[in-house]
């Protein structure tokens, strides 16, 4: 059986691209069209539930507008997806009327939290703001050193405790330091944590509370980092983190790979959390504001 699969998959990868091209160049909309569209969406990690919803919605629109050509359907589908991703939304990050502004960054293990913080820090340093980083990952080996190296590279300050320390204490000190030093922006790194581990979820709630107590109104953004290679588990991640702390936006990382990151469509659909930023590489410059139209274009191949 294995051999069949391997052969099948080699063909898969080659075939999918063709299919995508074919899908919208076909003249007529029929069952095949919808089956192919399902494959496109699911292969991009949009997931069964949201894909089904999108296809039904598209079908309805096409019927209403009496559209029969696939080319036109593509435009309608794009519009529909862009609307779903809040195409018109203002994605600028919230800053406090009076500095410091505090962003809290969280997510499961290895998704790109620390790197995204470095990229954000770099961006705002370029814009002339003073930036402080809080080494809130006191758990992972050399996580503090990792952030420390970035702080040097991007020219941001760093507040750290010892490895194994209490992350809430780190962010508490960092918020106070940010206020005392009149820093514009404080970025709080946290340890990667699976949303299923209740002790770690309690910990992130506490971190959030501590920030709020040290500086009313903070954190001004709570950004959940999702890895574009993540599949359906991304939905659970978003739901559970959202339940623990009010998440204000998603940073979608690793879009420079071949994964299309369709999970954020499901996340938006099912939790309402908007994508604000995307990571497109490992370097400090590789961060962009999420562009729904571009994203949808890439999603559809």
């Amino acid at each position: 059986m294995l051999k069949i699969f391997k052969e099948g998959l080699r063909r898969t990868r080659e075939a999918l691209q063709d299919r995508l091209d074919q899908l919208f160049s076909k003249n007529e909309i029929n069952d095949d069209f919808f089956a192919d569209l399902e494959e496109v969406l699911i292969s991009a990690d949009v997931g069964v539930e949201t894909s089904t919803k999108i296809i039904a919605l598209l079908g309805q629109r096409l019927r209403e507008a009496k559209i029969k050509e696939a080319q036109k359907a593509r435009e309608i589908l794009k519009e529909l997806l862009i609307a779903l991703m809040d195409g018109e939304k203002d994605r600028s990050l919230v800053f406090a009327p009076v500095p410091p502004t505090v962003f809290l960054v969280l997510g499961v293990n290895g998704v790109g939290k620390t790197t995204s913080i470095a990229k954000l820090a770099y961006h705002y340093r370029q814009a002339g703001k003073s930036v402080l980083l809080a080494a809130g990952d006191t758990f992972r080996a050399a996580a503090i050193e990792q952030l420390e190296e970035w702080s040097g590279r991007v020219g941001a300050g760093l507040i750290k405790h010892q490895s194994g320390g209490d992350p809430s204490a780190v962010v508490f000190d960092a918020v106070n330091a940010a206020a005392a030093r009149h820093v514009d922006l404080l970025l709080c790194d946290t340890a990667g944590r699976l949303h299923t581990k209740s002790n770690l979820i309690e910990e992130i709630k506490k971190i959030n509370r501590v920030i709020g107590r040290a500086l009313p109104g903070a954190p001004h953004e709570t950004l959940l980092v999702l890895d574009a290679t993540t599949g359906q588990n991304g939905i659970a991640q978003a739901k559970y983190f959202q339940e623990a702390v009010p998440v204000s936006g998603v940073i979608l990382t690793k879009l420079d790979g071949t994964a299309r990151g369709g999970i954020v469509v499901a996340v938006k659909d099912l939790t309402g959390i908007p994508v604000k930023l995307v990571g497109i590489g490992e370097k400090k410059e590789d961060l962009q504001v999420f562009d729904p139209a571009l994203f949808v274009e890439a999603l559809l191949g």
Partner: protein
Amino acid sequence: MLFGGLAEKLQDTFQKLKRKGKLTEKDVELALREVRMALLEADVNYRVARDFTAAVKERAIGAEVIKSLTPGQQVIKIVHEELIKLMGETQSKIAPPSPPPQCIMLVGLQGSGKTTSAAKLGLLLRRGGHNPLLVAADIYRPAAIQQLETLGRENGLPVFSLGKERPLQIGLQAMQRASREQNDYVIIDTAGRLHIDTELMDELKGLKEGLKPLEILLVVDAMTGQDAVNVAGTFHQQLGLTGVILTKLDGDTRGGAALSVRAVTGCPIKFSGLGEKMDAFEPFHPDRMASRILGMGDVLSLIEKAQQVVDEEKSRLLEKKLRSQSLTLEDFLEQLQQVRQMGPLDELLGLIPGFNRASKAMKNLSVDEKELLKAEAIVKSMTRQERLQPEIINSSRRRRIARGSGTTVQDVNRLLKQFGEMKKMLKQFSSMDKSRFKKSKGLFPFIR
């Protein structure tokens, strides 16, 4: 919900189908569509899922399913068996290091768990009597070298590093040092990279040529989605993998990437990473993975166990009784005995998907083997008449039963109450017209 998603859906599907009489090939196809959905929801690649269900179909439309009393269970069994087959036997072995030193390369995407797995594998090998050396060859990510050095220090494993020297240089010198220091395995932690990054993929090819590794293990995050086929396919094609490590299985991901990776590379999945701590590393279990992908805990073992002990004929009778709600304590006793034959109760309940979550949700929910024994003793101390008509058990009878079974009147009261509740619950189930799959388990009374 006691049983996981797919099991539930298949029961429903077949229940509906059965009402119209004979099952046909079409019906099985319909059921397999549910299977396909479950696979997709578990992140099994679209094409892999389709090919897999097609391959399973042949077996499923055989008489096995259509003639079965329990087609839902049969389909699950077949799907499960085929999944295990596809995922391979347990092959959690690393080839022997002869002649030493031999090199193991860990490769994969950014953040998949290579560095952590390098240390975990090192520990595992050392526990097996080996003398591994860890090598820090990620010269790109900030503090990647320190990360491995820290893990080595914390766990008493030697780590070789040369700062930001070229990875091949690092690897070659590490091999020399291993020869000198009698390290038999040399575990190389490489930098995370995208499979489409040709420059960095070439670096790995260079390492492979220069070090002639015994094993090249792809480290894959179990939460990976549809892209797993592209990643694993490319890594395999360019490097010739010998195995896979699947990480972050301690979360709630269904882990369909395992199936995709296996299908596209044919390489055995050798280890599972089950946490951030160093001992959270285990041989890979294809059977557990199959159940997990299907979203059913270990429901399969449960079905098997149930099938071993539950007499089909008796079950049918029981089902009828359940339907007519004429279940008696006599049947209850029989159920008790069957459940007991299936093994320790805790273990059984552990097999039921969602049970852990359910038990967290319902406070005071606990299962007690002793309770089960007590219940058995109590029912055994009843007369036949009492078992058939529990209504007649008045207080003097209760006292007698308590004495006879070495329990207290409160115990007897509680059992009778539980039995009453179970009947009520079964009534709800049968009015929902669920199959006997659920009902015949008879586990309810022991969950307090």
